[in-house]
């Protein structure tokens, strides 16, 4: 059902745990839909010097969180902002159709952390990042399943 890469990231997730000294934290998803992703970042001079995650969810949720952290580690905010769920999926050699929403959640978790970073500096994140679609309504996410 899952690609080898998904199973690899699920079995040996990269960058797991809370991050001490994080200055950007984003959490998306909810218990009702069964997936919650929390991303911690340390941002210095617009560069994500460190990033970790904590995830409550299925194998795909863990793997997409792990892959997303790998893809943005050491990158600039601008580069991280461009991370799409599609890119995360491709990096994992694809996901089963019912699991596409997990990659959407991973993209949103990254954006939520960046939004948190801007908010802390008194900058309106919406003007930079746009709306973070996950407002806790599962349907928002599962709409993407049609992709």
């Amino acid at each position, binding site marked *: 059902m899952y690609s080898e890469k998904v199973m690899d990231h699920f079995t040996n997730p990269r960058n*797991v*745990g809370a991050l001490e000294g994080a200055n950007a934290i984003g959490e998306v998803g909810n*218990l*009702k*839909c069964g997936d*919650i992703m929390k991303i911690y970042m340390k941002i210095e001079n617009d560069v994500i010097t460190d990033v970790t995650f*904590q995830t*409550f969810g*299925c194998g795909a949720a863990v793997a997409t969180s792990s892959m997303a952290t790998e893809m943005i580690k050491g990158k600039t905010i601008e580069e991280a902002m461009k991370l799409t769920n599609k890119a995360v999926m491709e990096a994992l050699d694809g996901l089963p159709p019912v699991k596409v929403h997990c990659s959407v959640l991973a993209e949103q978790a990254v954006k939520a952390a960046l939004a948190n970073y801007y908010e802390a500096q008194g900058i309106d994140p919406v003007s930079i990042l746009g709306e973070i679609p996950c407002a806790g309504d599962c*349907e928002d996410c599962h709409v993407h399943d049609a992709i």
Partner: protein
Amino acid sequence: MNKLVYADNAATTKVSESVLNAMLPYFSENYGNASSLYPHGQNSKKAINAARVPIAQLINADPSEIFFTGSGTESDNMVIRGVLNSVAAKNKGRNHVITTKIEHPAILRTCEAMAKQGFEITYLNVDSNGVISLEELENAITEKTALISIMAANNEIGSIQPLKEIGEIAKKHNVLFHTDAVQALGHMHIDVQEMNISLMSLSAHKIHGPKGVGAIYIKKNVFPDPIITGGGQERNRRSGTENVPGIVGFGQAAQDMIDHMEEDNAHTAKLSKRLMEGLLEIKKSVLTGHPTNRLPGTCSFAFEAIEGESMILMLGMKGICASTGSACSTGSLDPSHVLMAIGLTHQNAHGSLRLSISKYTTEEDVEYIIESVKEVVAKLRAMSPVWHE
């Protein structure tokens, strides 16, 4: 990974050696069509009829009341569609079925299909142990009620329903009582006469028989319309050339149950007790379903702050076969309808785990499962943002 610890016997079971040996000659030697009149065909017919005997004995029915089908699901369809269609044809007023919120999808989806055709369905609630209220059942009966369909024991949480009391209510109100006993057969006391059961769905592959064979018990003088019509096999109840090896295997599996039921159930009950003790040592874990009145081999749990599919994948890597009712496993947004019906929170339902053991499970298996589940739960909680001790 070479180790295999099979703890998903509620999903399906291993075909036992005695069953396999009984079946084999009916593939290559005794392959005659049971409808053919020459001895080669009649041998098959005899084998089919012989297979009815132990199945009937297991539930205290007459062999003539046992009919073979292709699966438990087919038997459930035959009951819901067949009874409603026959009743609808004869008596248009009786268009109501009473069932429960925790039935197998074979019943629920079929009821939904019949509702679209204009039949009325009442879905009874269950309490936190997964048991219906007899009062609610009796109150739901109207003069339009044609059928009560309540499973004998639940496939996800193992809870057993009060069949005898349900049967008494059905008899009092002159309503047919069907029970889906696919999960229960051989694992609990079932007596169609004592329990006033009119129809019962059964399946071979849950009792170490082959897949693709089900049966239906239909009490004398009850005539659901057939849903599969054709050559008139199974005394016009279910057409289609009989799956002779499968049926023979079902008969042997039932005979094995009769011969070893007590010791097998004592074995699984003992191992289940140890499994429950071991896993309930885990913090914020609960046993789901009835604490005592449950199938001896079905153990179901919920662990807070972790998700079931992740658990299944990790246990799978350790060679352990188990299942979950999390949303990820149901392919929808919602976790299992059974876990929701017993009032679990979404969080707990997402962290559900079912381990179902059989006569083949050993003490070493159980210890290995306990150790592995503890490890997996700890590992997943360590990466969960919602875990707080």
